[in-house]
């Protein structure tokens, strides 16, 4: 499924970015990667969250990003920053409880929000070797609320059993993170895909549908997942990007590298 088929005037990336951006509160700290999360944080900064603190894992703290970075370490990540610091500094800040939000992506996720970015197939003899944790295991362990953006929800990416658990979600359910030794009171918060927005059930910590993107049905959501998604009785529709949000996105990404055409 693509948004093109829905004949909307916005792109799928614009929709995902706007949803992600609206989740970020002002005067909070967010750990971002490049691409879509970066654009979402910049959009929040230019709309409802002017004082959001943007932090990059390689050490960029509070930059006023002039052009879109292509790496979480390139110069725009510390352009007019309040500090050009180190990984030890920012990872320690996360471990010490300073970081409210972090964006993560993954090749695959299970019903508890555990993520795989390491291998497809067997670890010893992988069918596809992926890059590994990077900072994902750190952010998924330390940040208060992690936000996942996965633009290709399908039965291959929403799976019953991961080939490899790279980054902790809710592990096997409520209380298991603390039991394992992870910091208390944090974990996955929202999952945004091309079909809808999800949260996690309070009791079971299983994936729960929160809203459907315009034109998407509950059946499509379930068809595109190997595990059962919890479906509450009334499902709202995701608010599409506004004209103002789209105008700002065009300013942030004039080449439409991330927001697409």
């Amino acid at each position, binding site marked *: 499924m693509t948004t093109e088929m829905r004949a909307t005037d916005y792109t799928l990336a614009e929709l995902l970015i706007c949803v992600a951006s609206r989740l970020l509160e002002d005067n909070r700290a967010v750990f971002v990667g490049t691409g879509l999360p970066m654009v979402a944080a910049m959009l929040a900064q230019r709309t409802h969250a002017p004082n959001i603190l943007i932090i990059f894992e390689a050490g960029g703290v509070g930059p006023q990003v002039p052009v879109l970075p292509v*790496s979480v370490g*390139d110069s725009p990540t510390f352009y007019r920053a309040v500090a050009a610091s180190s990984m030890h500094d920012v990872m320690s800040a996360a471990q010490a409880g300073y970081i409210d939000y972090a964006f993560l992506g993954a090749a695959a996720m299970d019903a508890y929000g555990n993520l795989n970015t390491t291998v497809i197939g067997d670890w010893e003899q992988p069918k596809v070797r992926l890059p590994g*944790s990077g900072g994902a295991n750190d952010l998924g362990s330390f940040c208060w609320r992690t936000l996942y953006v996965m633009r290709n929800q399908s039965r291959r990416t929403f799976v019953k059993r991961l080939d490899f658990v790279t980054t902790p979600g809710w592990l096997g359910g409520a209380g298991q993170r603390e039991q394992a030794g992870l910091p208390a009171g944090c974990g996955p918060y929202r999952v945004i895909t091309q079909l809808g927005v999800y949260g996690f059930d309070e009791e079971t910590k299983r994936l729960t549908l929160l809203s459907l993107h315009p034109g998407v049905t509950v059946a499509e959501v379930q068809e595109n997942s190997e595990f059962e998604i919890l479906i509450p009785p009334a499902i709202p529709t995701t608010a599409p990007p506004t004209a103002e949000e789209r105008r700002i996105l065009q300013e942030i990404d004039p080449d439409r590298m991330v927001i697409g055409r």
Partner: protein
Amino acid sequence: MARYVELLAEGQGELLGWRDPDENRAWVRDNKPRGLLDKRMSVREAVERFVHDGDYLAVGGFGHIRVPMALIYEIVRQRRRGLAIAGKTAVHDIDILIGAGCVSKVECAYAFGHELRGLSPAGRRAVESGQVKVVAEISNGGYQWRFLAGMMGIPFIPVRNLVGTDTFEKSSAKQIRDPWSGKPVTLVPAAYPDVALFHVPRCDRFGNAQMDGILVEDFELARAARRVIVTTEEIVDEEVIRQDPRQTVIPFYVVDAVCEVPFGAHPTLMPYRYSFDEEHIQEWLSLSRSEAGTQEYFAKYVYGVPDFAAYLERIGGRRTLERLQQVERLRAPAGASRRSRRRK
């Protein structure tokens, strides 16, 4: 309370670069120069003297940022073999070394990918065919804390990540019960790389190296590694360092070699100086899709040139380099090449 610490879990990954702290202290005492020695030498000599087959190697910078590429190409040229690499967001460096057949082991926090530029054909092929073995997994945060423990001269450091996952199961970390809080806590072992490589904007002849922009984990890594090679855009007078000592990230007493290599990070980015050479990176990514293309790349850019200066001529010389300087100073758009990448 138990009289000894309770071991709760152990990762099964290979322990790379760990040493008994007393053994390492004695080695440091006997091998690291505390006097102000002139350590200037050529890239060729530095690699000949300090990078050996089978070494456990870590490279400063991050991804495509401030990567000491002149040293990487020289390691390829000298055909080092059997290296174990710290995959600490190792991107272009490890890809080139793997493609050239220099690597047999990787401890992986992040490798085999090029961030937004996609997965690495050479790295993937090597791991999927078994030519290169991933011997342990870890995270970026976990890896830099291994270097922090190494720098501190302690055997391990307690952290609160990794656990609950297969990343922990395949790591060299352990988990114990914290004797104070009673909660489970992760221990990552110290790492002392045999050799670490850095590229910096300025350094004096003794090895006092300054950096501009983010440090990533270079502060810790330089102090944890046994041997340290620094390449620098320019060798500056000691007085330049002494006038602004706060900028010194790597002090002379951990440094073994200083090499002056202008544009020594090409095709990666040097903060405030020059941007990525996107065309060159794309040429590598495209050629490295096949073994024949990979060999073509090395014939053209490494074996076919005597040194890094000749390589810089081959990538377009002054004209290319001046353009990359303009891009980094935000005086020219990076857009053209970025847009063409998007269309592919």
